[in-house]
């Protein structure tokens, strides 16, 4: 039996200890915001935080996370308010297909947590493990800088109520 603290919630799990953390998160815990992309830590779509550090959950055995704190994209917003990166992603209209963006945001969040004012080179270093096939790199860079500026201003520039927004953009 493993004990994982995911987004502040404690889960007791009975799984094969060799299972990668990714599949436990997606299947057992049904947190599907963390994505499968390559399975060999080449694309970053599966990035989550392990005690605050970004890890590729597709190659991280679940046992590594036992008794540890995991944060996924679903746990990034606090008290119903977007993380400054999420707000910046909306402001810069970063996502296209959106599939890689959970991993992009988690990598960026770990960067800003350690380096609140990253240079372009810092951003390149932190983000080059995350592939985006829609080519949103330029907007991701702008989004990180915007979020850094928000954090520097010491406020989360008019946090958006996450329940706002207009209905279905898709399924009827």
């Amino acid at each position, binding site marked *: 039996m493993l004990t994982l603290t995911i987004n502040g919630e404690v889960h007791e799990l009975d799984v*094969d200890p060799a*299972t990668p953390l990714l*599949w436990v998160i997606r*299947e057992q815990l*049904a947190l*599907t*915001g963390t*994505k*499968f*992309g*390559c*399975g*060999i830590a*080449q*694309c970053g*779509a599966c990035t989550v935080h392990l005690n605050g550090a970004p890890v590729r959950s597709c190659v991280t055995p679940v046992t590594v996370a036992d008794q540890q704190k995991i944060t*996924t*994209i*679903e746990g*990034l*917003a606090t008290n119903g308010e*977007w993380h400054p*990166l*999420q707000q910046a*992603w*909306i402001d810069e*209209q*970063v*996502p*296209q*297909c*959106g*599939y890689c963006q959970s991993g992009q*945001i988690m990598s960026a969040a770990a960067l800003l947590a350690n380096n609140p004012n990253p240079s372009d080179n810092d*951003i*390149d*270093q932190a*983000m*080059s*493990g*995350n*592939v*985006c*096939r*829609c*080519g*949103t*790199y330029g*907007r*991701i*860079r702008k989004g990180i800088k915007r979020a850094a500026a928000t954090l520097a201003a010491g406020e989360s520039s008019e946090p958006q109520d*996450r329940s706002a*927004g*207009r*209905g*279905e*953009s*898709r*399924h*009827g």
Partner: protein
Amino acid sequence: MGKWTRRAFISSGIIAGGTLAVGVAIRPGDRSGKVADLIAADGAAVFDVWLKLAPDNTVTAIIPHAEMGQGVHTSLAMMLADELDANWDEVRMQEAPAHKEYANYAMAKGYALGDADFPAFLVDTVDGVFLTATRMMGLQITGGSTSVKTTGQQAMRVAGAATRSMLLQAAAEEWQVAVSELSASSGRIEHPASHRSAPFAAFAERAASLPEPAKPRLKTSSEFTIMGTSPARLDVPAKVDGSASFGIDVRLPGMKFAAVKAAPVFGARIANVRNESVQNMPGVRRIVNLGDAVAVVADSYWQAEQALARLTVSYTESGNERINQSDIFNQFTADLDKAVAEQAFETDVKAGDAAAAFTAGERIIEAEYRVPYLAHATMEPMNCTAWMRDGRCELWTGTQNPLGFALEVAKALDIDADDVTLHNQYLGGGFGRRAFPDYAIQAARIARESAYPVQLIWSRAEDTRHDHYRQANISRFRAAINADGMPLAWENSYVDKHDPAEATHIPYGIDHQLIRYTSSQSHVPWGFWRSVDHSLHAFFTESFIDELAIAAGADPYTYRRQLLANNPRFRDVLDLAAEKSDWQRPLPENFGRGIAIHRSFGTIVAQVLEVEIVAGKLIARRAVCAVDAGYAVHPDGMKAQMESGIIYGLTAALYGEISIRDGAVQQSNFHDYPMLRMSEAPEIETHIINSGESMGGAGEPGTPAIAPALTNAIFDATGTRIRELPVQRHDLSKPDLKARDVV
């Protein structure tokens, strides 16, 4: 703008709760290519759009296209809302359902109107619309950059304009005033003379009793209030908190997971599967032999993958087992040579008398180019969830072709198409790949024999090795040059044409042209790949014109410009790219810049790329893009699509290469099929021209020109002319002289 000449079928009515519904079906003017044989006769409708105006004044646009990141839902709704003069904040979007619910007229009416009990008064007008719609099953495709230019222009705008016209007429009757005294804006109708104002919904019922306008007037671009702005895309918030549901995110009660591995060699089949070591592995439920692939179903995907890897599978001989990549290129060469010897080409373009011009020219320049196969490598690997119950099959997947998928699955299961329901999900990248239903058919066949829903997920290796590939190709050029270095004749011969037909066309004023091809097929499955044939032919033609410029001792920009003297629309795009890139500005040491221009899907794109090459290492520093798509409905979305197309094309040009060894694809994942990353991505700026010409697409036209812009820039920096992609095959570290006369 404002031209609308095609015949539309418009119908309307009031449905439960006082909602006004207006439907538009149109038939296409374009009967070429894929569409032609699916249109039965004159009057057949191909695109259908519905608009609903609810009592709370919200407007719902029902959109027959999939959202895969290109912002199509937002752009299409903007077109409808603008013609309607709706309040953008009151506009909602809904994706039309797949297949029978949409194409079958009775169920379509129920879905579109949110009311299964269809009101009798609508039947006469609406039946015709949907009966004709049933003839186009399989055509609900998102691809070819057509959403805005076709559905948007011909149906969304008409639906909005027709509804606006009916609402104004209804208000005039209600208030006993002339229509000319009324105005519509932001979801309301105003009568300034009497200071009366009411929301659209107040007139819905009366509007429904009025005859539909046969041909509503569309706005001119100067009247647009929503088009031409860039409202936030509605799909973005769900894509920053993990809540957007892609195909792979579908969760159903009791669902199991499947991993699959097809015979590596295309055309081979499964000879034997040895299960012993696998059947008792934890979580394993079933091993399924699909004939050309083996799948394992397990409680978790990881268990399924582990078990699949331990199966011992043998394959039948397909006859393709000894084919290597060099054999395929050798075959192309032999087929080209044979076509030359036998004069057995198919003709793309024949203008003037190229043969005579070659004898008259001062000089002849030749070059041959080649490109490799390419995979799509969508971020979300192929996947589909299927559930078979009581002879009916339900599918959950992300697809660019929902009707086609449902039909193909019905055929594969030998069940009635009525018994297949497809729930389209967000697409984690499409780029053409998600128009092919192979993975949905596999999922359905696995689920057919299961008592539970099954989610089939392809590994990245499976996704890379069983794609439908952009074709490899060889293209040969000859040009006859006059004493001034300008081309008199242009001859281009290549193999394996797909579409669009005009991909090889050049915009330049060259009197004598012969563009031709011969068939040379391989066993490698072909597929639509972002911009399709444009993705290779822009590289070929824009490389060769660059070589001609260099041979003439001319500046590549001004040389092109001279040849565009009679093509002002192209020239304007080229000029804008040159101007914004500071074309004449001297570059630092080790830098080079290249230019290219190409039209695809009705949109002209010119790009200038600056590269820096130090010790053989290339970095693309800056890309400047000029685009004329006629009119940019959502300028920021247009820019995003150009950025995306550039990165996609640059990735392929630098790294993209799928190669065949022993009949199978050699590459398997991002380590051997590399992707451009953030540290390698150039700064991109896009400049838009709204020329007012017919609207073109946005999703694909950003891709074709960047490969030649790149290789032309490499030539500028190093004097090395790259004639074979990808660039990573070439050693750029050699201190090549700026040999201007390499050709």
